[in-house]
């Protein structure tokens, strides 16, 4: 068993994960990643997951060892925010070519590490393994070790090639890399009784800064945030924190649990999405810190801040409540967000017609039932076609989801709001929740929707014009039919060849015909049965003098 598969097996046996604890032994051995379905899969790979989890460390150089696709197609595509350093947004890759595939890419990787140190001198380099070098046997652990020793700089291998599994597994492997190579390798300059770690918070759109001022006000220091707006030194010395909060994510649970195991840092799972959740999380932080020896007055101060912030947020949301009355929202997201956002939306007076629970744990589902009642509409798996139909049939007024499903809503001319990682607004904490409500209001009541849903007027006009035209033609046909002379002339004489009376009369008149044979020469009335009828016609016709020219021709 290679060390990577051993690591993966260990991750699957995470005792801290409630979902895992409920499994039978056989299920546990199979691991927690669903078998990916060829031709029906969506979502990122393990490398993607590892990069997402670690890239928000802003002063670290993130070097991707692989062909161009892995970094070239994906760099600088996440909305995490930095308060200073910018090296994390630099796309760095060995861009392996055919020669590297044949002769191995280790030398190129080592040279690349050296170039980065010479050019940028970052406090550390994270090296990400990808599928192709993993296949040809490039040993990035060995290269990183050699580079660390020779170049005197932490070079951290992140062994999470795409084909080992899903994005979620990649998050976990990233956590393993931190535990193995980073956490506890440095000491902080000083410590306080108010030091905490935030684990699994990526500071997307700078949302961490919606909460940080409150922590600052309480004197609580974020010793390390893993990994939003994080610095290498902070995470390396994060083992000195007094308490930890695991934010909104099961993916990093092994980091939290192992830090508790190794360094005695107690943690709780919490969320800053929603008013109630924000208050709960602040309370938990204060409680854990006091338990670990912080002065107990912290709890009172925390309660005071909570009371003030809640009052402010409620007051700001109040005016929206009547506007949201009767409006129904559909929530397509995963995990913790499936209930933390439900609570928040309900606080604002929206009715939830459904929430997805595809990525949620049993506890998440319990929370949803608590919030939405026993008959909560929990959507296990909904195809885009079904979502589209639901929106088109106006069973919901707004959809909240991640960027990938946005067009399902927008193309149904339905309001939509991005609540996943690519969004451009920050929705954390009390201010964030007010912002979310504002954004929902803007989306719901945009006058544009009405225009877009109107039927195209000129299609009606065109249809009317066409109907009018058709009616006119019908009327003409009726008029023609009503004229007695036309009716008389249209009467069939020769049924075999479909020759009507009018044609025969015209031929007789213009050529001055007198015999049945002559008539048959000039018209198509060839059958045998119409002889008598033609004779009758000839008898009725006034004898006219035929035109001289025609006579001559005959």
């Amino acid at each position, binding site marked *: 068993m290679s060390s990577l598969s051993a690591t993966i097996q260990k991750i699957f046996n995470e005792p801290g994960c409630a979902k895992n604890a409920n499994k039978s032994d056989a299920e546990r051995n199979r691991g927690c990643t669903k078998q990916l379905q060829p031709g029906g899969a969506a979502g990122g790979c393990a490398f993607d997951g590892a990069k997402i989890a670690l890239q928000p460390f802003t002063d670290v150089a993130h070097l991707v060892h692989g062909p161009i696709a892995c970094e070239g197609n994906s760099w600088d595509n996440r909305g995490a925010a930095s308060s200073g350093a910018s090296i994390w947004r630099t796309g760095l890759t*060995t861009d392996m070519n055919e020669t590297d595939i044949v002769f191995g890419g280790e030398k190129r990787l080592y040279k690349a590490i050296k170039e980065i140190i010479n050019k940028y001198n970052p406090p550390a380099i994270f090296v990400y393994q990808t599928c192709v070098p993993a296949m040809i046997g490039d040993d990035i652990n060995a290269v990183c070790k050699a580079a660390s020793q020779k170049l005197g700089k932490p070079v951290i291998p992140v062994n999470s090639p795409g084909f080992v599994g899903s994005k979620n597994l990649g998050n976990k492997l990233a956590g393993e890399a931190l535990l193995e190579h980073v956490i506890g390798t440095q000491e902080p300059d000083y410590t306080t009784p108010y030091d905490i770690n935030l684990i699994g918070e990526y500071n997307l759109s700078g949302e961490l800064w919606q909460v940080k001022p409150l922590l600052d006000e309480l004197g609580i220091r974020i010793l390390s945030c893993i990994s939003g707006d994080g610095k290498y030194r902070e995470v390396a010395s994060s083992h000195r924190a007094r308490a930890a909060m695991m934010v909104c994510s099961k993916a990093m649970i092994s980091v939290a649990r192992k830090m508790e195991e190794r360094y005695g840092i107690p943690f709780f799972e919490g969320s800053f999405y929603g008013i109630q959740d924000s208050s709960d999380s602040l309370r938990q932080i204060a409680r854990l810190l006091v338990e670990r020896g912080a002065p107990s007055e912290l709890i009172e101060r925390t309660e005071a801040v909570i009371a003030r912030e809640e009052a402010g947020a409620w007051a700001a949301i109040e005016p929206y409540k009547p506007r949201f009355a009767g409006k129904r929202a559909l929530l397509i997201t995963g995990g913790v967000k499936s209930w933390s956002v439900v609570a928040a939306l309900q606080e604002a007076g929206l009715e939830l017609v459904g929430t997805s629970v595809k990525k949620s744990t049993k506890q998440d589902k319990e929370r949803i039932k608590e919030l939405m009642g026993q008959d909560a509409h929990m959507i296990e798996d909904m195809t885009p076609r079904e979502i589209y139909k639901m929106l088109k049939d106006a069973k919901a007024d707004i959809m909240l989801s991640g960027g990938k499903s946005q067009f399902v809503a927008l193309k149904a001319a339905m309001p939509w709001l991005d609540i996943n990682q690519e969004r451009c607004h920050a929705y954390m904490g009390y201010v964030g929740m007010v912002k979310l409500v504002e954004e929902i209001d803007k989306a719901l009541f945009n006058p544009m929707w009405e225009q877009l849903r109107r039927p195209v007027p000129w299609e009606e006009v065109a249809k009317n014009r066409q109907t009018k035209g058709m009616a006119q033609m019908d009327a003409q046909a009726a008029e023609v039919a009503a004229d007695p002379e036309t009716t008389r002339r249209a009467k069939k004489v020769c049924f075999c060849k479909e020759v009507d009376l009018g044609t025969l009369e015209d031929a007789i008149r213009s050529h001055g015909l007198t015999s049945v044979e002559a008539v048959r020469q000039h018209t198509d009335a060839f059958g045998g049965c119409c002889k008598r009828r033609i004779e009758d016609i000839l008898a009725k016709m006034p004898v006219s003098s035929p035109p001289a020219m025609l006579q001559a021709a005959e």
Partner: protein
Amino acid sequence: MAIVTTPKKACAVNPLKMSQPIGGAFAFMGLRGAMPLLHGSQGCTSFGLTLFVRHFKEAVPLQTTAMSEVATVLGGYENVEQAILNIYNRTKPEIIGICSTGVTETNGDDVDGYIKLIREQHPQLAKFPLVFVSTPDFKDAFQDGWEKTVACMVEVLVEAPAVGAERDPARVNVLPGCHLTPGDLDELRTILEDFGLKPSFLPDLAGSLDGQIPDEFTPTTIGGIGVDEVAGMGRSSWTIAIGAQMRRAAQAMQAKTGVPFRLFERLCGLIPNDEFIAFLSDISGRPVPEKYRRQRGQLSDAMLDAHFHVGGRKLAIGAEPDLLFDLSSMLHEMGAQVTAAVTTTQSPVLERIGTNEVLIGDLEDLEELARTRNCNLLITHSHGRQAAARLKIPFYRAGFPMFDRIGAGHQLSVGYRGTRDVIFDIANLVIADREENHQPTPDSWQTSRRSLKPGRRSFVDATEGSIA
């Protein structure tokens, strides 16, 4: 003429290049009812998908064979088979286009062989259009993936016309390079139709990624050229190829069907469009419509108005070869100096670019060259935004991806009208930059203290507006 060089770096910094497989998948997106499929691990697809969605702001069909580590070792036959069956049964496509990736090229999957076997195993797929293109990530670039895929589509999907079959004199094939937008294709369609010609575009992104709102949700492409229409392209009287990358597909078309082709390497600029319009007039036997006489006049006037701002500009440009050649030549013809040129892959047009050196490199190279050579206009795709912010020079976004602005699918650069718009946009960026960053001050012309002032790069810098 330009010398093409490659840097000796081990580490690419801020890549300019996108990978070959997604260039191939992109070409399949111009077919109606298509599902492009990348044979690789699911990240290969997911990164590409995100990139396309961010560029077009549209739902994009792209699937994966979801290769796992085990499948990679054992070979990908089952994954390809399952993927094709799943897509065939669930999304009811008219065609599945398969591109390989670095993973499946490294383990040597014989996808052509797999497809034969799959057709035998599943009779319902015996005649179903399946096109495979080999596009490893570790070779070539986005544009090459497009080039190979379109050539492959011609070879597989176009039918050789029967001996003595009549050609439709009005029908014309258009093979557009990947640097043209859906908006460009619509413009070309209008121009060709104005000459009474009936164009068939292969691929036709204008039908699939131009922002249509379909009545029904469709998991495959919502439009584009149909497989049946592609099959009949052999009855056209001419093939028009746009961009040197399309020579290969045009030659394949000629070899298979005998349809002669004319290659237009550029369609941005006055002279290229004069040639283009003259050619259309010639093959259609019709005089040039009045509309184009006026558009030509407007372009000439735009050049007159803009040359004050564009003339003398030192251009730093990073783009795939055909786009690089097109835009840099147009600006060169407007008096700009192509001072730094970086591209992604080899092409015969590179040595004809009006500069001394073209580098096959990355955005770090471009930024470095732009800094040391005092460039004052930057053109590249959206990933140039960091460099532009550091260089503090006007930045015109062109190429793929363009994710930080909307309307990428409708950015026009072909025809007299498209060229006119590009010239206006670039000149306006220069004007705005001058107003915001280069207003004269009492010290602007102080020769003795010049060296003390930070941020002044050259003598003309402070006064460039008034001098130019």
